[in-house]
């Protein structure tokens, strides 16, 4: 062996990799999660994700709270679409106590849930644009989220962590202003959406950056427990709104958009198409909105009117019992899932008849699919890893519970 070859061999065996931290608090990670990356130049060789930075022990806290006080905890799971979490929790309890919610309340819930799905997808799609360098679309289209939050504010008084609805229905009917704001939104939004679509969808830079970026096959996606838009982008048409309809979703006609490659571009396109479907669901719900009460007749769970509390004995008793958490709840265990912004959001509730759940487990889609992240980014570029992360739409609150 010549000296030259020998020295070449040693350089090869001593190949140096760079270890870098992606996160925990980097603006491009859109949340607090850390990835320790082993880099060969700009290629990722290995990734080790760390989660739990905003773990707040919701499953433990929930064992110490009466049922109506758990709704604010669910707000803070996927805080980009809190109303879906709230409704999912209400429906879980309603399933446990066997409460049938009137049609009007169900339709109102559908409107709110689809609005928040749009809000969730607005964030994800604009952020994908932003991370490829298209700030205009982000700043422009983000105004629509503001409009949605204004509707939420009109309905329930809160914007982000909404605590919307009650066990048994809605806390109040939609006001005149809420209907008006919804009307304006329904007129404005399609324009904004198609303009955003025109701006981004066939853009050369955007397509070059996102096509074949962070792909996952349908088999791997299913093995990793993917649900929601990320699974549908891989080509599996699993949507809980169709598979196990809740809150009268069977009354509406809508398509489930699916992708083919499961890459960033498909995830983006599926979300864009879902916004159109959500719009159509809201339109149908507004058109078909039935008359009637906006909450079920369950005085043990639904807070009475304040005037009644001051003037009627029964209302006073129920009010006291609900607020002090003295309501009898049936024993049993129940699982209910809703189609959240990111997939199957499930609530597994074990009740022993006490004032608080005996055990409450959240099936959080983000937590479950984020573990596929290393597999999706290894052997890719660092800049692709950032895009893959934003297209997965990992929300730290849901990740860490």
């Amino acid at each position: 062996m010549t000296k030259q070859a020998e020295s070449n061999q040693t350089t090869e065996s001593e190949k140096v990799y760079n270890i870098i931290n992606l996160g925990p608090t980097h603006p491009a990670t859109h949340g607090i999660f850390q990835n320790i990356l082993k880099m060969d130049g700009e290629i990722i060789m290995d990734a080790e994700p760390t989660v739990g930075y905003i773990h707040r022990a919701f499953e433990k806290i929930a064992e110490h709270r009466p049922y109506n006080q758990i709704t604010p905890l669910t707000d803070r799971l996927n805080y980009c679409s809190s109303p879906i979490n709230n409704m999912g929790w209400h429906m879980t309890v309603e399933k446990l106590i066997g409460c049938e919610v009137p049609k009007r309340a169900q339709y109102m819930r559908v409107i709110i849930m689809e609005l928040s799905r749009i809000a969730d997808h607005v964030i994800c799609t604009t952020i994908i644009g932003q991370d490829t360098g298209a700030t205009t679309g982000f700043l422009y289209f983000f105004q629509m989220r503001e409009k949605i939050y204004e509707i939420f504010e009109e309905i329930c008084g809160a914007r982000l962590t909404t605590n919307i609805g009650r066990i048994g229905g809605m806390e109040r009917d939609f006001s005149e202003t809420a209907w008006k704001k919804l009307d304006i939104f329904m007129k404005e939004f399609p324009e904004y959406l198609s303009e955003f679509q025109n701006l981004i969808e066939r853009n050369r830079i955007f397509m070059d950056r996102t096509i074949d970026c962070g792909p996952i096959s349908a088999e791997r996606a299913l093995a990793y427990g993917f649900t929601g838009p990320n699974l549908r982008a891989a080509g599996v048409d699993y949507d809980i709104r169709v598979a196990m309809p809740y809150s009268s979703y069977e009354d509406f006609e809508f398509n489930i958009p699916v992708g083919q490659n499961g890459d960033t571009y498909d995830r983006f396109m599926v979300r864009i198409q879902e916004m159109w479907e959500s719009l159509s669901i809201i339109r149908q719900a507004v058109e078909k909105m039935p008359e009637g009460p906006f909450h079920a007749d369950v005085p043990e769970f639904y807070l009475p009117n304040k005037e009644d509390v001051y003037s009627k004995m029964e209302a006073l008793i129920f009010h006291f019992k609900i607020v002090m958490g003295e309501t009898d709840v049936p024993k049993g265990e129940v699982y209910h899932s809703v189609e959240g912004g990111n997939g199957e959001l499930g609530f597994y509730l074990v009740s022993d008849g006490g004032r608080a759940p005996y055990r409450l487990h959240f099936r959080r889609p983000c937590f479950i699919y984020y573990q596929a992240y290393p597999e999706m980014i290894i052997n890719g570029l660092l800049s692709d890893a950032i895009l893959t992360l934003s297209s997965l739409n990992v929300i730290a609150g849901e990740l860490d519970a």
Partner: protein
Amino acid sequence: MVSNEMTIQLKEKIETLLKEKFPNAVLNVSVEYDFPVFEIEKNAMLDVITFLKNAPETGFGFLTTMAGLHYPDNADKEFGMMYQLHKLETNERIRLKVFTSKNDLKIPSLTHLWPTANWMERQEYDFFGFNFTGHPNLVRILNMDEMNYFPLRKEYPLEDGSRDDKNDKMFGR
């Protein structure tokens, strides 16, 4: 109790299949709302789940979720794991339960069947301290590594009693 025809049919179908294949493995069968629930003997659990996943007549190919359970008063069955499987093609769902004694928290890991079981099991280890045998990397995931107890067990109160930064002698909480 709300339980429709389909759930009962599914329960009977799976019950017959399991009892035929694993005569001693099924300890208890019930219907909880819209879910058939099977309590499985711990030693047979891995075989049963592998069968449910791979056999063509069952084919529950999707692991929806899993959750730990703690019943301190059930002697020799203090800890349990709940698994939910889903067959997407026919939209059938079942729930399995396995119970184990507090002195032996070994439960076979499902990571070789579903990669998604990895973090799910790490989470239940973090909360309850299950020892999933065969798990490639069983370390804490949500709580900090230095934590020396398993917080979701029933004996631990919601808050640390020795904390003095939250003094509420005057107002209560």
